[in-house]
């Protein structure tokens, strides 16, 4: 980091290594895709031929079963192989980029948040399934943080009815796809307080929005804050009315509003067990295209963006200001 000239050859070296890994595996992945495509072609061809009575039944059955087995097998292998290669390339490409920001940061492409973390935050009710990866761990100033890309699939009225995969039915689109940052809080507290955006108040008025929100967070009390701008933008739920106000001082409310203006994205915040959970919607993950030459500018741009988000959350919420409260 001392001499900026050192970075260039080093960067080209690790990008070249990642590129080599990608090249090694991309041929294999491409071959698997071709096999997959071919077996589907055989399957449909057989069906058409049988319908037109061009094939004897025995041959048709063999071909159908064979092609389906091939497609299924290759598909499975392709899925896991692709995941591994993705992780290996990301490890080689992104881990050094992350370390360049700060030596002590740790990047783990295969690790992610657990469902338990999300249940602790209580930010997303009725979770059906989550996908999480690209874990980033480190310390900014005095604050330890963990940050991960997250996709949340929530249960809707349809998914409850369809009994599939142990009574679960996956939605095709996640209801949340963004970043979750978990950081140490600068204050001590016992209960749980969550701050979620208020979409209904703008359209249906205050009373109605409160009634709707009460249905999704039944175990928590609604808090009415005195800042009218904040009350219009967010709903606050808590286990303890005094603690909610202890955490959300007038200064903190202003900070949260400012953070939302600055990020221009939907944010949700939870305070639980001396930790702050912040989720930011609409953030891309670090996925790389394995069939194309790696473009380091694109990836480093996304790493920079994520780091900027983490920094603005920790600095914006003043989590490093713990001169008089907590070490």
């Amino acid at each position, binding site marked *: 980091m001392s001499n900026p000239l050192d970075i260039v050859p080093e960067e080209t070296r690790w990008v070249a290594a990642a590129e080599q890994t990608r090249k090694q595996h991309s041929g294999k992945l491409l071959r698997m895709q071709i096999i997959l495509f071919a077996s589907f072609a055989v399957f449909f061809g057989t069906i058409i031929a049988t319908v037109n009575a061009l094939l004897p039944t025995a041959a048709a059955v063999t071909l159908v079963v064979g092609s389906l087995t091939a497609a299924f097998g290759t598909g499975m292998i392709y899925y896991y192989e692709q995941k591994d290669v993705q992780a290996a390339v990301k490890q080689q490409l992104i881990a050094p980029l992350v370390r360049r920001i700060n030596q002590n940061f740790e990047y783990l492409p295969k690790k992610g948040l657990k469902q338990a973390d999300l249940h602790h935050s209580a930010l997303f009710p009725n979770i059906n399934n989550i996908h999480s990866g690209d874990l980033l761990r480190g310390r900014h100033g005095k604050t330890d943080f963990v940050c991960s890309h997250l996709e949340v699939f929530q249960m809707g009225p349809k998914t409850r009815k369809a009994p599939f995969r142990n009574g679960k039915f996956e939605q095709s689109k996640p209801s949340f796809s963004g970043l979750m940052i978990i950081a140490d809080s600068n204050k001590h507290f016992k209960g749980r307080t969550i701050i979620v955006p208020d979409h209904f108040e703008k359209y249906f008025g205050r009373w109605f929005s409160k009634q709707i929100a009460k249905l999704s967070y039944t175990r928590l009390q609604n*808090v*009415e804050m*005195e800042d009218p701008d904040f009350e219009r933008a967010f709903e606050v739920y808590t286990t303890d*009315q*005094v*603690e*909610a*106000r*202890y955490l959300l*001082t007038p200064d903190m409310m202003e900070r949260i509003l400012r953070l939302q203006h600055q990020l221009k994205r939907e944010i949700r915040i939870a305070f639980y067990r001396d930790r702050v959970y912040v989720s930011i919607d609409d953030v891309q993950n670090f996925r790389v295209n394995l069939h194309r030459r790696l473009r380091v500018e694109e990836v480093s741009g996304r790493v920079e963006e994520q780091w900027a988000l983490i920094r603005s959350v920790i600095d914006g919420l003043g989590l490093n200001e713990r001169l*008089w*409260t907590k070490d």
Partner: protein
Amino acid sequence: MLVALSYLFGLFIVCALIFASAHNRLIRLQHQAEQSLSTVEVVLSERHHLLRQLMQALELQNQQAAQLLETAERAKALPMRSSEKQRLELELSSYTRDLMERPEQLPASPGHLHFQRSIREVESQLSASWRAYNAAAIAYNRALHSFPTNIAGQLLKLDPAPLYQNQ
């Protein structure tokens, strides 16, 4: 005649139910305000305790310290609602604020930083509990002035809860 009477009776029952629910709502809001006031009292007594400890630990023996201790003692003995108590607590608040803004007036000692931190913590707890009280009091007062809870309020001769002002 009987039909009219039974309708009247039904109307009476509906009115009684509305009145009962309005009454219960009002009482619940009143209790919430009382409850948050008692939280404030707890934090206030914590502050008295802390100030006494501060004086003892730092061995402040000037006139101001003695006066402050006396103020704290007097304030602790008074009931929560009395205006005298409010005045004394505001006096203590102005002292702690001064302490937070100019920490150099305390003699340097190992416990110094710890007390600074504790005072700041207690003050933020106190402001949070006052804000919670104000929110509960506002909800209660609003119910006291709006229909149909205002009828129950007038029958029970309930007074609006005073709001806390920090000056």
